[in-house]
């Protein structure tokens, strides 16, 4: 059996097990917490495509995620369409945003590129705050149904949608890693000038990466208004998304498809545990400390540490 098929079958089996386990548990909070963790699997996998493989650090994850969330709101306001079309539309909008951002900023290198992506997030937030159609600074409400057949609750439905998206994002990351695109991006990360000199079309690959990265971040954000029932710019453009999107792949092991998944599951679970046991204000404090510890002691993340041991 080829490795791709094995991955998809394994992921599907794991997903089914997870759904069955949560259904047995029968607790709505478990779906809520599961969704929280899985949304970060998507976000971290998306960040990893550009930041992990190509070495271009994107500080604007919150901007792309919010672009996805507000795309879903716009589609609902304009056409009354629900979550799944909203996710597709969000992928399209955020993907185009990624392409445009890449085209304008990818001639910048290192920290200059990172600052440009951070600025993008600020510009988008200013736009949304002043755009009444999507609620402006007041925010927008989405009245979601209590349940949707054949799922036991809307929470389960959202969880399963996010589970499918998370498996898809990890699978896309894995496919990129094993493909010509992934090798090209790794060459760019190691030495862009040498990559160009041996025939790697660096700008084209980086544009593909920014588009893919933007689209996946948008996908991670699209269900957000349905998840909370209300979305305002402050929540959508939260610093937590930008920080977590970077911290999770770095802690798990950037530049590998499994690293962001491990980092997201570990860090998001810790944050959820801290939220319910201590305080939600501790979230970024935990992320900050973990990031410092990992950068100092395990710069290649958990996966890198295990590989070195092996």
């Amino acid at each position: 059996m080829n490795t791709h098929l094995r991955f998809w079958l394994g992921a599907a089996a794991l997903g089914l097990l997870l759904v069955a386990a949560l259904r047995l548990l029968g607790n709505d909070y478990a779906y809520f917490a599961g969704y929280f963790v899985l949304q970060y699997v998507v976000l971290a996998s998306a960040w990893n495509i550009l930041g992990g493989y190509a070495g271009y650090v994107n500080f604007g994850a919150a901007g792309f995620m919010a672009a996805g969330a507000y795309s879903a709101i716009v589609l609902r306001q304009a056409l009354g369409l629900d979550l799944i079309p909203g996710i597709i539309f969000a992928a399209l909008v955020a993907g185009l945003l990624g392409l445009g951002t890449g085209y304008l900023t990818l001639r910048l290198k290192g920290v200059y590129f990172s600052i440009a992506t951070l600025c993008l997030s600020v510009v988008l937030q200013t736009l949304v705050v002043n755009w009444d159609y999507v609620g402006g600074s007041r925010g927008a409400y989405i009245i979601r149904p209590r349940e949707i057949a054949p799922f036991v609750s809307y929470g389960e439905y959202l969880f399963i949608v996010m589970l499918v998206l998370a498996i898809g994002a990890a699978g896309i990351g894995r496919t990129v890693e094993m493909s010509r695109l992934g090798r090209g991006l790794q060459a760019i990360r190691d030495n862009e000038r040498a990559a160009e000199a041996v025939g790697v079309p660096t700008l084209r690959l980086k544009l593909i990466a920014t588009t893919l990265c933007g689209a996946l971040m948008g996908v991670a954000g699209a269900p957000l208004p349905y998840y909370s029932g209300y979305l305002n710019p402050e929540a959508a453009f939260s610093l937590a998304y930008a920080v977590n999107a970077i911290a999770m792949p770095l802690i798990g092991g950037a530049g590998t498809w499994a690293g962001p998944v491990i980092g997201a599951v570990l860090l998001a679970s810790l944050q959820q545990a801290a939220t319910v046991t201590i305080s939600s204000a501790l979230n970024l404090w935990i992320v900050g400390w973990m990031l410092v510890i990992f950068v100092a002691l395990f710069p290649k993340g958990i996966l890198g540490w295990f590989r070195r041991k092996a």
Partner: protein
Amino acid sequence: MSTEVLLHARGVGKKFGGFVALAEVDIQLRPGERLGLIGPNGSGKSTFVNCISGDFAQHEGEVTLGGHQLGGLKPHRRARLGLARTFQLPQPFNSLSVLENVRVPLLFAGHAAEATERAMACLEQVEMAGKAHKLPKELTQVEQRRLELARAIALDPRLLIADEAMAGLSNAEVDQIIELLFKLNQAGTAVIMIEHIMRAVTAFSERLVVFVAGRKIADGLPREVLALPEVEGAYLGKQ
């Protein structure tokens, strides 16, 4: 000897602000020719290479390779037209194995299906097949130079620009690299060797070009060029 022109640089010049790094350089190279390019530090050799390879996209004059205008083409497009180069300091892809380093150009040159076999063949040519699964940081200086050459060979180049490919090597290692360059040349690749090691340049080159202060001051057979008083004065420091 072929009269066909592989590389034709006409009036190539480059300024950095008010500083003229290169001015009105004309060079022609035939297919399979071995050209040595020498000159003191700051004479414009690397600037010329960067104009040819596309690192400096904006420059005066025009360059053609095999009849194709190179002006405005990015380095990767020039690489696909058969232009390969090595760097003064080896620039491997450090997170990739030696084999993967050589596979990268093949993946983007339409040889994805047989990239591994071809990469191994390139490594065998530079006697590095035994190090295929090492990381570049585990290689010695001369092995890193060999890796650069293997990566260049993978492009199946019509022209290789070896920019100080022997810097920092011992005499025996210099001989090994010269031997590799001869092998590559015998397979039909034209080579421009930019080098400060005169023993290597004179042993390898069938023609010599000398740059001083951004201008070409001599072009001809090595022994004739080296005997010119202006070359002796400018390059070798004699009166």
